[in-house]
């Protein structure tokens, strides 16, 4: 295990805990109906966004999916702007026109997210193509789920990205479920990362609940891209702690999917945040007082973001047709 500075380790931890606290702060408002937009919570998958984005510069681009709260925050997006968007407010990052599934902040390289499965992979490839034409050394990252492996455009993109040696990282967040459907019922080959190999895309699988493993894999792939060595495919094995959409925990709630209780129990024990806390404590990078205070800060930030959103105005109906065309 290469050594990292305490500062770096703490920053990884802070990113993960900020995502977790923000996600969990949305549960009550979703249940109460204050939040209506479909929220696909990222709890349990934080190590992936945190680990990959830790190697990205502000100018590097990220495209996300329906489940992109974590990508937005890890790339540097503001929590208030995101939570306000989720509450459908004018102060939201998309002015209340996009909701939870359309998070953007071009200033920090979060170029957007969208719920058409695999629909943003080609967009990320386009950003990589732009980087390649401009020769600016920037890298584009496409986050997508295991379900996206059923869409043909992914294969078109792996081929073209490899053909043109584009600076692009395909990050497959394999949480083993394509909405309600176990991924093993969707495909024969269980090791998703192998799909990159026939296209000569550097392909590997990592433990997506181990933030340092994700970081190392991402860093290496991103460095390759910056050198012009072409794209990489990183499959991150993970698990979402809640249902496909909403706060559903699949045990009670209204069951957006039904997963075996023992499977959920098993993955809860692999909580990426708890695991990283153990690592930090064991390696004396932080003590529990320090970790608690970071967690409390994150909880306070999430609470403040919710308050800010609730106190923000809704977009005016008279302005509904703003933004159809750019002037």
């Amino acid at each position: 295990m290469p050594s990292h500075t305490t500062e770096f380790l703490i920053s990884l931890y802070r990113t993960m805990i900020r995502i977790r606290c923000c996600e969990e702060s949305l549960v009550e408002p979703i249940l109460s109906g204050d939040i209506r937009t479909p929220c696909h919570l990222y709890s349990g998958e934080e190590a992936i966004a945190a680990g990959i984005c830790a190697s990205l510069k502000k100018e590097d681009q990220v495209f996300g999916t329906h489940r992109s709260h974590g990508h937005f925050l890890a790339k540097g997006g503001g929590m208030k702007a995101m939570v306000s968007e989720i509450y459908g407010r004018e102060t939201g990052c998309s002015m209340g026109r996009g909701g939870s599934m359309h998070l953007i902040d071009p200033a920090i390289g979060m170029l957007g997210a969208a719920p058409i499965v695999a629909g943003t992979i080609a967009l990320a490839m386009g950003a990589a193509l732009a980087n390649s034409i401009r020769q600016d050394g920037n890298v584009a990252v496409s986050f997508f789920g295991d379900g996206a492996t059923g869409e043909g455009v992914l294969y078109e993109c792996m081929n073209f990205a490899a053909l043109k040696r584009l600076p692009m990282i395909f990050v497959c967040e394999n949480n083993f479920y394509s909405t309600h459907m176990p991924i093993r019922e969707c495909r024969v080959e269980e090791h998703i990362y192998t799909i990159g190999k026939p296209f000569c895309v550097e392909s590997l699988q990592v433990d997506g609940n181990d933030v340092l493993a994700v970081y190392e894999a991402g860093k290496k792939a991103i460095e390759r891209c910056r050198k012009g060595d072409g794209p990489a495919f990183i499959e991150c094995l993970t698990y979402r702690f809640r249902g496909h959409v909403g706060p559903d925990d699949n045990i009670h709630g209204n069951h957006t999917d039904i997963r075996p209780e023992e499977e959920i129990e098993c993955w809860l024990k692999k909580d990426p945040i708890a695991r990283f806390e153990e690592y930090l404590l064991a390696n004396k990078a932080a003590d529990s007082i320090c970790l608690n205070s970071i967690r409390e800060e994150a909880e306070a930030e999430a609470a403040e973001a919710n308050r800010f959103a609730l106190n923000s105005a809704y977009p005016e109906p008279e302005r509904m047709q703003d933004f159809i065309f750019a002037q």
Partner: protein
Amino acid sequence: MRKLTYSLAINEALHQSMAEDSTVFLIGQGVKSPWYIGNTAQHLLERFGKSRVIDTPVSENGITGAAVGAAIAGMKPVVVHPRMDFMIYAFDPIINEAANWFYMNGGRASVPVVIWGIINRGGEQAAQHSQALHAMFAHVPGLKVVMPATPYDAKGLMMAAIKDPNPVVYIDERWLHHLEGDVPEEPYTVELGKGIVRKTGNDVTIIGISYMAKEALNAAQELEKEGIDAEVIDVRSIKPLDSELILGSVRKTGRAVVADVGWRFCGISAEIAALVYEHDFECLKAPIKRVTLPDCPAPASKFLEKAYYHSSLDIVKAAREVITHSPQRS
């Protein structure tokens, strides 16, 4: 003025746009193959290099998505579909992503991409090599759709489409590629959203789209011999549509024929007819006539093709019918 063919006018627009703006690039299947796109891209590769003139595998969804993504990331791509039938593979990036992006992101990122599709009618190419799909794209909020009918507009609309900050579907027509006309040598744009009166007249307004705008002019000449003074409008911009120009003309003539290169049902001809009925019903002296493709896939056999594709003769016939419909000719 200097004469140029329609296809070389497109070529000149690409040359001048790429020369004046280093973020403009051309991508798509066949950009280095005259078999695919005629001479519209000639000498671009030699002049601008393969990083900005990118021939691609047949991967319409991925490549169009890449053009859209590059636009979001600050470039001005032109993505070409040598047969627009294949653009159907790219409905997702065009409609779900490009058309919606600016709106659903609250105006934070625009998508300055040109999606260029070529209609290839006739030639016994049958149903999957000849479709005119402009109405489908025009249906979608957030997309602009243009269809030049002259060499002048082929260049000016392409240059305007490239400069526009929004996704523009630029649709040209292979049957017009050899048409020659006046084209200024210097760069210029034709404003998106503006139609044009090609011939003034008082008896009937003929509203033509793409190739049918050319046929409308031929029809007007024929009608003149019969003493019918037709006004001819070339729509040029399907969306935004120049409603004022169309309504103003029909208010004057009281009669309209709409001639489209597409199908009838839910087609642009229906949209234009509805526009007139909604706004200026009282000024109509006769019901509007539409000259469109029948609601039938394109057939292969040339005898069927002859029946399928309309020409100036059908426009003449429709114009006579709207003229004779009213009891007294005004």
